[in-house]
């Protein structure tokens, strides 16, 4: 996870030897979901990776949540209202809501949890910086005062980091080793050796007990996950939005949906020659975007710009005039994850295409963790990443380019963009805010700090035994597993014998 954008490496293959799990016979079948990585943290305010967010969303609940089509619905909140000036939000909590340990969920817990998100230890603080004050009026009423009216704030609260934790338990130093939430599934164990997280259905879940009684989240690579799926030992490969034509789909269900994500090649303005605007612009138009998309991700959606389709700002198109510019003499290195299934082919294609246009480009396939480290330390000249969104508003992605944002991967500093983003956040009028967004995006596109490759289309594979699997157009993080069920006549849990 990178500031402003959730960076997910979608097709990673973490190189470890799969320890096929051996599941003892149990009274009820377990739902086995393969994940590309165990969560790096189970603390919602420190979740910077999609794996952590996906697991967190199963264990924890927030005040609000997203429906599959991104409608904001009440989770722990029964109802909510916004004051006329848009600065005061009042939430009424549901009755009979409990944490996994049986304690009732109160407004004080929600106040405590949101204040944690604003604390110095929080890595998601930037999402909550519009908050002025949080106070619980009584056990079931929470009031949030904002510094300025910020319409997307409800989306922030429906996001995967705005989770409610039990106030009197979090101080326990071992709390996040065995976390307690109020989500659909109760954490039971993390087996580091087997790389598995075991969850069970929370019987007092406020929306009704989940239909899956047990869930196993199993870390594995894409290749291994596909093998396990073919042998009927895994129910769910949703962590890997596969290519539509993958032969695995002949063995299970294919559930397809767009997701709010953009694959980009980020350009670091601190690294020459990308410190020069014209060079960045020429590089941006030189990358064989269409060829890349059609060759490697043919069912993805063409990217008009940085913001994914279907979100305000996605329609911004900027034609860059680069006819009088020549490629620089310096070599340019693009870092791409080594774990990409066809990484070598990608390397060859990009290098060949750029060389033919006079560029000296080298594509380096490097391990995911090194890429991440270089990203956070802003060591790469250019890098291939997927930008996911935590809430469906262009503001989320635009934050990446604020001058004072430590997660500004491009190092871009543009006071106009800063002003536009600041003004847009304080603007309640939808059309007016849209104008600011578009102008900011136009400036970002002209700055040429991203080469927008495509918007992926998720093709989720689930076993034929899986029912009620409904994708979420924001991200697989928000898939509602409390409604997912296993067909009674399916026994996929003859799973994996070692």
């Amino acid at each position, binding site marked *: 996870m990178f500031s402003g954008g959730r960076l997910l490496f979608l097709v990673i293959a973490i190189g470890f030897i799969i320890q096929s799990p051996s599941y003892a016979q149990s009274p009820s079948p377990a739902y086995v979901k393969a994940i590309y990585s165990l969560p790096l943290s189970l603390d919602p305010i420190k979740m910077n990776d999609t794996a952590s967010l996906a697991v967190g969303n199963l264990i924890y609940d927030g005040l609000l949540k997203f429906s*599959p*089509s*991104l*409608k904001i619905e009440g989770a722990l909140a029964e109802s909510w209202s916004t004051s006329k000036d848009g600065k005061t939000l009042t939430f009424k909590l549901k009755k009979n809501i409990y944490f996994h340990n049986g304690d009732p969920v109160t407004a004080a817990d929600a106040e405590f949890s949101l204040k944690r998100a604003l604390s110095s230890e929080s890595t998601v603080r930037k999402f909550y910086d519009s908050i002025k004050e949080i106070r619980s009026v009584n056990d079931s009423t929470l009031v949030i005062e904002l510094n300025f009216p910020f319409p997307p704030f409800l989306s922030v609260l429906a996001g995967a980091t705005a989770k409610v934790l039990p106030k009197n338990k979090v101080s326990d130093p071992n709390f996040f080793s065995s976390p307690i939430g109020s989500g659909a599934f109760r954490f039971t164990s993390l087996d580091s050796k087997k790389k598995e997280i075991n969850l069970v259905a929370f019987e007092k879940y406020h929306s009704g007990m989940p239909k899956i009684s047990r869930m196993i989240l199993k870390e594995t690579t894409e290749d291994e996950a596909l093998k396990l799926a073919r042998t009927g030992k895994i129910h769910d490969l949703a962590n890997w939005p596969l290519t539509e034509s993958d032969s695995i789909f002949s063995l299970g269900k294919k*559930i*397809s*949906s*767009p997701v709010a994500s953009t694959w980009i090649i980020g350009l670091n303005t601190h690294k020459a020659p990308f410190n020069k605007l014209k060079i960045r612009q020429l590089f941006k138009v030189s990358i064989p975007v269409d060829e890349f998309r059609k060759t490697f991700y043919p069912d993805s*959606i063409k990217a008009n710009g940085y913001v994914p*389709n*279907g*979100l*305000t*700002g*996605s*329609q911004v198109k900027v034609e860059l005039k680069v006819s009088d510019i020549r490629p620089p003499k310096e070599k340019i290195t693009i870092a791409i994850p080594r774990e990409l299934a066809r990484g070598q082919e990608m390397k060859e294609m990009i290098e060949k295409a750029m060389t033919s246009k006079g560029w000296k480009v080298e594509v380096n396939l490097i391990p995911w963790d090194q890429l991440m480290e270089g990203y956070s330390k802003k060591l790469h000249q250019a890098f291939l990443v997927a930008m996911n969104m935590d809430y*469906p508003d262009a503001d989320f992605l635009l934050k990446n380019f604020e001058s004072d944002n430590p997660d500004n991967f491009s190092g871009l500093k543009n006071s106009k963009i800063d002003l536009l983003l600041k003004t847009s956040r304080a603007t309640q009028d*939808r*059309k007016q805010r*849209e104008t600011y967004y578009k102008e900011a995006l136009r400036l970002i596109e002209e700055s040429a700090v991203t080469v927008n490759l495509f918007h992926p*289309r998720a093709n989720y594979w689930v076993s034929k035994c899986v029912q009620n699997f*409904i*994708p979420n*157009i924001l991200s697989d993080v928000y898939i509602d597993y409390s409604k997912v069920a296993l067909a009674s006549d399916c026994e996929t849990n003859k799973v994996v014998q070692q």
Partner: protein
Amino acid sequence: MKSMSLFKHVNSSLNPYRWAISVLAAVLISGLFAGISLESRLDTDKKMAESLAPYLATLIESSDRPELLRVLQSIAEATKSDVVLTQDETVFASSRSLEELDRKFIKPKTFVRFFDIDFGNNEIVTTTNIKKSGQSLEDSKVYIISPLLPSMESTLGIFLGAFVASILISLFSARQMRKAIKKALRPMDQLHAEIEGMITDGHLESEPIQIRELEEIRNTVRSTKTALDNAKDQLAETKAKKLSSDAYKRLIHDLHNPVSALRQMASLAHDETQDLETQTEAANSIPRLADQILSQVTSAKKNLEQEPIALRDLNIVDCIKDGIRQVQTLENFKSISASFQDEHITVPHDPLLLKRAIVNLLENGIEAAKSRVRVSVLRNDNNTIIKVCDDGAGMDETKVPVYLQGRGQSGKANRQAFGLSSTNHIVRSHGGKLIYRKSDLGGSSFEIRLGVI
């Protein structure tokens, strides 16, 4: 040919038209209602999409898919349909599935287009172009895809409802029509009853008939009846005159012989050429002949003094039974047996006079009978024969005409003579004959022969 009532005839004649018109009207009315319902339903969908078009256009311009999905979901719930919004023929938002987003829109196959509405095998597709401020947003459309069967269910329901209602109204109307026909034909029944009454009882009083034509018929029947009665009276008068004339003629004829005999006896009594014995016998015969003539005249006078005959077409058996009953109340020692070939024999007769004639014959028979009298009624071609027989000694056949003429003298002071003479007169007045025969029972047998209608 089987006859039927006028009501049934009218009702059955109207039935085919009534049903055909009812069904046709029901189909047309229900079809009209169903068509209006379907058109209204689909037009509502289209109008809803059109009214939301400016807002949808704004959201498309903003590329605000989450909000569009919410709006389309609301439209879908309101219209119970799937709603798809396309841009450049690619699905931008859809209420039915997230999977089709950003894919080429596959429009359901339709086979007929009605205005702006396409009908397919399983759905109805209403297409609306997205417009903003009167200007069409290029290649942006909203498709409202309604499942055909549920959409048609309500239409079909309305069709059936309207059809059933129309049929029920038609049935009610038919029932009322039947009542109306019955009511309309009531004057006919009244007329019929009145004509019957006129014929049987001569009853002419009635309520006024409201139908002019029927009133005219009734008046015509009434005047005809009156004319017939008058004609009958005239005929009876003429007949009475003729009977009277005939009686006089018979009297004159019957008196001819005794008077001639009287003249001859008077001539012999004074004919000195005759011997004394002859003269004496002749002289002695003169008072006897004079008595006979006097008796005959007296009997004829009595017969002529009787009330004039009034012939009516009635059952003669009833008349005979009345006579037997009358006689039986007087006689308990001798049996009277009766046999009738038919219980209903209509003969024109005057029941009072004929009963008197029968009673006369029965009384004579009882008086003469040893133990039994038998009455039988036979029908023979155009005649009705009433026989009264007894098992007595019988009569001298040579003297029967004398008795029939009223000249005979019985041991009952001319009673029988007067009875037979009267009976003969009555039978003749009816145009019949009174015939004497020896009875198979050993006594007398008198036959009354009357003409049958």
